[in-house]
């Protein structure tokens, strides 16, 4: 029996429990659900459970993203325990019980919709799940209820809705003009009839889907929601938005790219995706130069990393492996950075970088891992992102585009220098007076364990992958 229905049912049932159960146990219920899901997924991978069904299906791409979702979902739920507790202690005049309930119920629905995106086989239900990821997270972005939160949430909702409609029209074009459209309403069915889709229809549909799901993936020029939503959301939600939700947007594009490749329109899809990827890397890198807010800085970096992943997936089999690694490493590091940004925001009192220095000495665990995380996301060795970015450049050279490889390298170097500058100015130097005055409690297990797991994960990728590559295991040789 397949385990996939359980993966979707457990978070939903837990959300119902969270709604009714009161007290401290409520905060731990999402952790229990996500641990269960992670265990089921790992067992499923080990046992090789059936992967294709009429409603639920899993392929290589969805397996990778499901793994990322389950892992980051678990660490976000764990980090939320301490984050929400601290938030509740600081609010004296608000109904914190109701606020906590809303937070954890929405967190579970958000997590469930993220898993549903990659597990569902029906194209329109996948679309619905991608939409639900946005709808479930809108109120989470607005959770603290400030004016800026309202602004970010409104913008997020409007842009997500419009992106969703564009993608839906593209999907309807692909499916609706099929002679046997009822078969083509599943991803596997559509792939089977891909050759019968006229090239002009497939290309037009892909452009619409790229724009629609590109909005969800934060690709430039559809990224306007991303820095606002990421900077205003509670830190664990920013981690989920950046570490998981962006991947789900890219998933929609990649499934359509597979259909175009199956129908002989692969080069068009690859070129369009790579163009948007390059544009995203260029604009996001330049935008990081002018940021004054560390959460916005991390948000632009998310966009840049998804741009690199988009380029990777347009470069054939080697690029696909690089793309998987890019998504995994980015999710691990960026979620960790957002967890730290929560700690730092609490100690510093804002997300502004101006005047912020000496974090590594003032908050040893948070500060030092934050500096490491910033170096890791910039692509420094020995972290995993270095390997995946190296593989993308290698794949570009191998596909006969050395100039494009050099251009990408230039942007990556610029981003690296920029993050190095920010990490030194924030991490070292005199401890900021305001930072010095704040009470600095020892980090709790719910804060250190998620960041520790993420750091170990990305280090493992960075150190083991070269060995696997040299042994030829990674490329299946």
């Amino acid at each position, binding site marked *: 029996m397949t385990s996939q229905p359980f993966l979707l049912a457990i978070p939903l049932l837990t959300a119902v429990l969270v709604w009714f159960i009161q007290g401290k146990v409520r905060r731990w219920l999402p952790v229990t659900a996500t641990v269960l899901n992670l265990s089921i997924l790992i067992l499923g991978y080990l046992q090789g459970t059936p992967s294709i069904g009429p409603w639920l299906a899993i392929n290589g791409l969805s397996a990778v993203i499901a793994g990322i979702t389950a892992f980051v979902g678990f660490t976000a739920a764990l980090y939320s325990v301490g984050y929400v507790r601290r938030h509740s202690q600081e609010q004296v005049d608000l109904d914190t019980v109701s606020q906590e309930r809303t937070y954890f119920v929405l967190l579970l629905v958000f997590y469930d919709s993220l898993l549903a995106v990659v597990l569902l086989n*029906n194209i*329109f*239900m996948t*679309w*619905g799940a991608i*939409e*639900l990821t946005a*709808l479930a997270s*809108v*109120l989470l972005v*607005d959770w603290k*209820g400030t*004016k*800026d939160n*309202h*602004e*970010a*949430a*409104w*913008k997020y*909702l*409007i842009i997500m*809705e*419009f992106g*969703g*409609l*564009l993608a*839906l*029209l593209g999907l*309807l*074009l692909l*499916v*609706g*003009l*099929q002679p*046997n*459209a*009822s078969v083509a*309403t599943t991803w596997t069915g559509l792939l089977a009839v891909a050759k019968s889709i*006229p090239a*002009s*229809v497939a290309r*037009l549909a892909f452009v619409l889907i790229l724009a629609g799901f590109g909005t969800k993936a934060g690709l430039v020029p559809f990224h*306007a*929601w991303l*820095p*606002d939503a990421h*900077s*205003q959301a509670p830190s664990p939600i920013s981690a989920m938005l950046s570490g998981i939700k962006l991947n789900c947007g890219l998933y929609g594009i990649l499934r359509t790219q597979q259909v175009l490749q199956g129908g002989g329109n692969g080069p068009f899809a690859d070129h369009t995706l790579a163009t948007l990827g390059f544009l995203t890397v260029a604009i996001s890198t330049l935008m990081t130069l002018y940021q004054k807010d560390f959460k916005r800085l991390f948000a632009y970096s998310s966009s840049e990393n998804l741009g690199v992943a988009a380029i990777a997936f347009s470069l054939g089999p080697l690029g696909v492996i690089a793309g998987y690694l890019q998504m995994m490493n980015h999710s691990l590091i960026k979620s960790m950075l957002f967890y730290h940004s929560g700690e730092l925001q609490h100690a510093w009192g804002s997300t502004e970088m101006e005047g912020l220095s000496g974090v590594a000495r003032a908050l040893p665990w948070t500060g030092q891992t934050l500096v490491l995380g910033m170096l890791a996301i910039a692509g420094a060795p020995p972290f995993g992102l270095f390997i995946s970015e190296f593989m993308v450049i290698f794949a570009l050279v191998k596909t006969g585009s050395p100039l494009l490889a050099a251009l990408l390298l230039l942007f990556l170097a610029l981003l690296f220098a920029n993050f190095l500058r920010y990490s030194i100015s924030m991490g070292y130097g005199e401890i900021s007076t305001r930072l010095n005055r704040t009470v600095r409690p020892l980090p709790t297990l719910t804060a250190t364990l998620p960041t520790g797991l993420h750091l170990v994960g990305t280090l493992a990728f960075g150190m083991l992958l070269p060995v696997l590559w040299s042994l030829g295991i990674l490329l299946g040789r």
Partner: protein
Amino acid sequence: MTWLLWIYLGVYLLAVWATAVREVNTGLWVYLLQTALVALLYGRQGLLTHDIGVWVSLFGLVSIRGLWIPWFIHRRLPPLLQSERDIAYRITPTFLVLFSLALGLLSIFLMNSRIGQRGLPYGTALATLLTGLALMSFAHHAGKQMLGMLIAENGVDLALATTLWRVSATADYTVFVEVALAVILFVVLMLKLHQSEGVRLDHYHSLRG
């Protein structure tokens, strides 16, 4: 079916005009008119194809899109918000209508040149979608942006209606439920904006996108 699509185009321009110059309430009536035309298309498909799935979808369209959504907006939004006009539209309504007309013709031409005669509904859908984007982008009033989204969504339903007998009702209900959820969120956020600095979005510019 072509004549119905041309009537739809007229209604779509009326929707653009009403959303730009009139209050949210009038915009809702035009949205209903537009939805009724899409429902007509569904009904026509049902009669032609004798497919029970089309009738099931029509029921969802009428009950969720046609009745529940306008009722929910009317019930939940304070009367003051419903009767407000967007006096600070970034462009004139006449220009917006002309712009939408041009956008509509361009979309239909694009789809026809790519797909042929079968592309007409998709062209109309794309035109409505792009006009919805224009309405959302140029409006200052949160309610007008929500209406822009609903009008854009009608465009996609138009494309759904023309392919209905071949696409399962699951697709329709996924879209209907998604729009219903989105409307709930739009209204909740509008109430929050109303309690904060009002629903005029030009009062919110601390975030830079």
